[in-house]
């Protein structure tokens, strides 16, 4: 049902939301991979929780500076204009309203914008890191996730069952099947992966979806 390159198209579609002048934080995993689809010369400042504005490309271990990792632990480089600072300043950028966009992974996301991505009681509780502040305080919060979990169960729910990272924080959800926006009217289906029907999406979405009047743009 989902074409082989659906994941790549999701990442490319998410990357299109990163526009000139933004300061952006990309979560570990799928969100970090969005970078591959951001034009190299686009003026974007990549923020990392551990005290970097202007994160450069990842580097091979052989070229790594042991003092320079991103918040996911990957060795990275600088670009002209990079700055380093302490962790309090780093979260001042987040909480103070200077972070334009964050893209995060999700265990569960709900139609009302609730996000759960840090704890599965009894199974996975390593601490939230900086996720709560990113989710609560970035000017725009996007979730990037496969539409269903590895067992085929919906990840976009009518209500989160796991403890929340932040409530009502998510603005947009990118999946391998669809783009959905959290609106006052509910979760709106705004774009659909090429080759899929609306019914395909509805079949694996637990949350109610507000459907468009006309045809859906594809990605």
């Amino acid at each position: 049902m989902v074409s082989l390159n659906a994941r790549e198209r999701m990442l490319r579609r998410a990357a299109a939301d990163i526009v000139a002048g933004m300061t952006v934080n990309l979560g570990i995993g799928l969100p970090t991979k969005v970078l591959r689809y951001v034009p190299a010369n686009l003026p974007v400042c990549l923020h990392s929780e551990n005290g970097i504005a202007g994160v450069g490309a990842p580097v091979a271990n052989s070229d790594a500076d042991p003092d320079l990792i991103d918040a996911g632990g990957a060795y990275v480089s600088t670009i002209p204009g990079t700055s380093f600072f302490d962790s309090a300043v780093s979260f001042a950028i987040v909480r103070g309203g200077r972070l334009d966009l964050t893209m995060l992974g999700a265990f569960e996301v709900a139609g009302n914008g609730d996000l759960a991505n840090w704890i599965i009681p009894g199974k996975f509780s390593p601490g939230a890191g900086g996720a709560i502040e990113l989710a609560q305080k970035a000017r725009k919060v996007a979730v990037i996730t496969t539409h269903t979990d590895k067992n085929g169960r919906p990840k976009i729910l009518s209500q989160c069952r796991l403890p929340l990272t932040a409530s009502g924080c998510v603005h947009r959800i990118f999946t391998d099947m669809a783009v959905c926006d959290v609106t006052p009217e509910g979760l709106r289906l705004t774009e659909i992966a090429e080759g899929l029907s609306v019914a395909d999406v509805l079949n694996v979405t637990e949350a109610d979806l507000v459907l468009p009047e006309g045809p859906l743009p594809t990605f």
Partner: protein
Amino acid sequence: MAMLDKTTVMAEAIAQIPDGATVMLGGFGVPGTPFSLIKELVRQGQKDLTLIKNDANETGMGVDWLLQNGQVRKLVVSHIGLNANAVRMMNEGEIEVEFVPQGILAERIRVAGAGVMGFVTDIGMGTLMAKGKPEITVNGVTGILETALKADFALVHASQADTFGNLRFTASARNFNPLISMAARKTIAEVKSVTPLGGLAPDDVHTPGPFVDHVVVIPELLEVYGVVER
């Protein structure tokens, strides 16, 4: 990945400030005061301003230009003792003045920049400074609640910047400048020189570029920035 060029013409940067705005100004005495940006604000004449700054400079200098031009409604400061004109205007009710202990002023600005709502401190307890402030008990000790101090605009004086707005300050001219850069919706920095990207080492940046919206290169330091003869 690349970085945005934030260099801006001074008149355009300052023109964004509307009447009635709350404006933070860097500087402790002369060092770090954004005299050129203030001069442009005087030229443009925005009215009814609330200014947040450590002090009111001296009579005939900086903040006093705005006071004498009738542009100021309120000052939030730690000390105005070197500006007799500001003291007179306060005493005659021409301006409102809110005095804050210097380090509490710094901290109220810093927590605003950190996206925090307020903080609890015992500074000023039992003095006039605590009057009317709510009391909060933390682990059995009582303090007073100080609220975050935000602004619409911060006007900053830095010695060096790159085009992305990474800033460096010199000596005691740093003072409130890094703090106000973080606490305003928009931050405008006047700088003596701007370097291309890469001109400042990442470890040497005092104020990271994401906090700065506009970099204005000033053609020369105004005379007022020289050594003050007393």
